[in-house]
């Protein structure tokens, strides 16, 4: 299937606007068709690469290369067979990329240990994101995809893109603010990967990007240092929840406490998109009960002070239109 100029435009906008804020970089040519190495099984002569992104993994000494298939559709036009076709096609692309000299020559950097993954990006261009999308995805769980053992394919649906786009927009807004919580320039920011018991952050300085796992999780944590006073740092937690119960905030406080973030000169801010109307009162209540629950008389401790200093706010909702043009998903 030949690639179109529409996808090219969308890929350009995506790479410059959305994923660049998560420190993903683009590699190799966009909208390029390369030879299939298994044409008898895949029943195509070439595979397309709309765009290939890469980022460094924090917990392994690997660089992840993402073979992306970008799709844009109107709310009513996505149906299960099309989604299945797109997934199967991407699986074939990933399987081929793993062994294709041409693909690796074009996109993989020499001297790096590459991990190749697939990203199916399904953008809803008429602005009415499809809430049944996840149901469609669940229905496809039983589909057997022909990908090598250990390879992964990630699907970002309209709702995920809406969430990520709002996080991106909020980061840009925070950077441009004149007062209040202000983010420094990108070179002073990185996504936060603590040292874990099972996984060590091996590339603390090099791996700054948000990984696919972080972007698809409920929590995106951005860390920054103040350039004018390097001893001071801050964390912004973009939490993808409603804030309807105190447990959600307790979890976030425990997360911060577990990774020893409650230190002097570390500011913490929690941000939520589409939060419940009760999120703010729940947050306030959780701050009080969390401190009381720590120990008798804990209200006067420095830990209580740090918890009470956590900021909470909602993200103003925006909807970006990358493209007005529908891009077909036919695989005939």
């Amino acid at each position: 299937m030949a690639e179109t100029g529409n996808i090219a435009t969308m890929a350009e906008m995506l790479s410059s606007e959305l994923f660049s804020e998560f420190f993903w970089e683009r590699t190799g040519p966009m909208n390029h068709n390369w030879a299939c190495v298994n044409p008898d099984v895949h029943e195509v002569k070439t595979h397309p690469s709309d765009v290939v992104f890469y980022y460094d993994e924090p917990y392994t000494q690997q660089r992840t290369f993402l073979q992306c298939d970008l799709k844009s559709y109107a709310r009513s036009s996505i149906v299960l067979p099309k989604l299945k076709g797109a997934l199967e096609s991407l699986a074939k692309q990933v399987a081929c990329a793993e062994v294709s000299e041409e693909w690796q020559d074009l996109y993989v950097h020499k001297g790096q240990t590459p991990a190749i993954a697939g990203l199916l990006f399904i953008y809803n261009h008429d602005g009415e994101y499809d809430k049944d999308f996840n149901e469609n995805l669940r229905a496809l769980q039983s589909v057997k995809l022909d990908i090598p053992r250990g390879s992964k394919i990630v699907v970002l649906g309209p709702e995920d893109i809406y969430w990520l786009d709002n996080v991106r927009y909020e980061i840009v807004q925070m950077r441009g603010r004149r007062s209040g919580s202000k983010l420094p320039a990108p070179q002073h920011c990185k996504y936060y990967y603590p040292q874990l018991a099972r996984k060590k952050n091996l590339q603390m300085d090099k791996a700054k990007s948000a990984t696919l796992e972080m972007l698809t999780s409920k929590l995106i944590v951005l860390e920054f240092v103040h350039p004018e006073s390097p001893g001071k740092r801050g964390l912004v937690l973009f939490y993808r929840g409603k804030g309807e119960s105190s447990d959600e905030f307790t979890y976030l406080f425990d997360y911060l406490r577990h990774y020893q973030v409650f230190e002097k000169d570390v500011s913490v801010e929690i941000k939520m998109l589409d939060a419940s109307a009760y999120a703010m009162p729940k947050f306030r209540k959780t701050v009080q009960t969390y401190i009381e629950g720590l120990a008798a008389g804990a209200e006067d401790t420095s830990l209580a002070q740090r918890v009470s200093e956590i900021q909470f706010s909602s993200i103003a909702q925006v909807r970006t239109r990358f493209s007005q043009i529908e891009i077909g998903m036919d695989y005939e």
Partner: protein
Amino acid sequence: MRQNSFKLENRSGFLLDRIRDDFLEARYIERFEFQETVSDPFGKEVTFERLEYRQTAFRATATWPGLELIDPSRSVQQLLSELIEASDFSVSLAPLSVDVLKWAEGIQQTFGGMLTISSIQVGGLKLEDSATAKVVIKGDKDVREACQKITGNRPHILEKLQFRIAIGSASATVLLANNATAKIEGGEVEEELLPAIRKAMIGI
């Protein structure tokens, strides 16, 4: 391997899964077609065709140990013959014999802490001139000391050992054998264990 890639009409062939500068991962696939005959309670025979695919995944590296078979079937002779043929008869394959205790200690070094070896199998333990024993030592605690007490200065072969390893909140049971096979039970930590097992093998 590409020249001998598996196609549905072929009886056997390779499927390449992953190619990197220093290793490749592939599967060797064999197709078996045979007839199975079943007798019903009245003695009437029914014959039907059966089709089976046998897959053996492997990883070939440019450096030692060279070839790693993953979940291999009982007979890998055909695969080895085809591999030698694919390399234009320029490689030789030999079975490995390893010291399982050193191998386990190497794995322990990667994760730190103490490794509790819960079972050791000793073979060829010389009791008298013409008598040897095969012994399996098991315990709730580490059995290395108990093994040392039994074997003493007698000639013996450490055939297998088993240990349980906890990595964070997940754990796995690992069985190492002196023919360089490793069996992992507990898929959750396989991703972290496999590189450690490979690294320790190289370090023996």
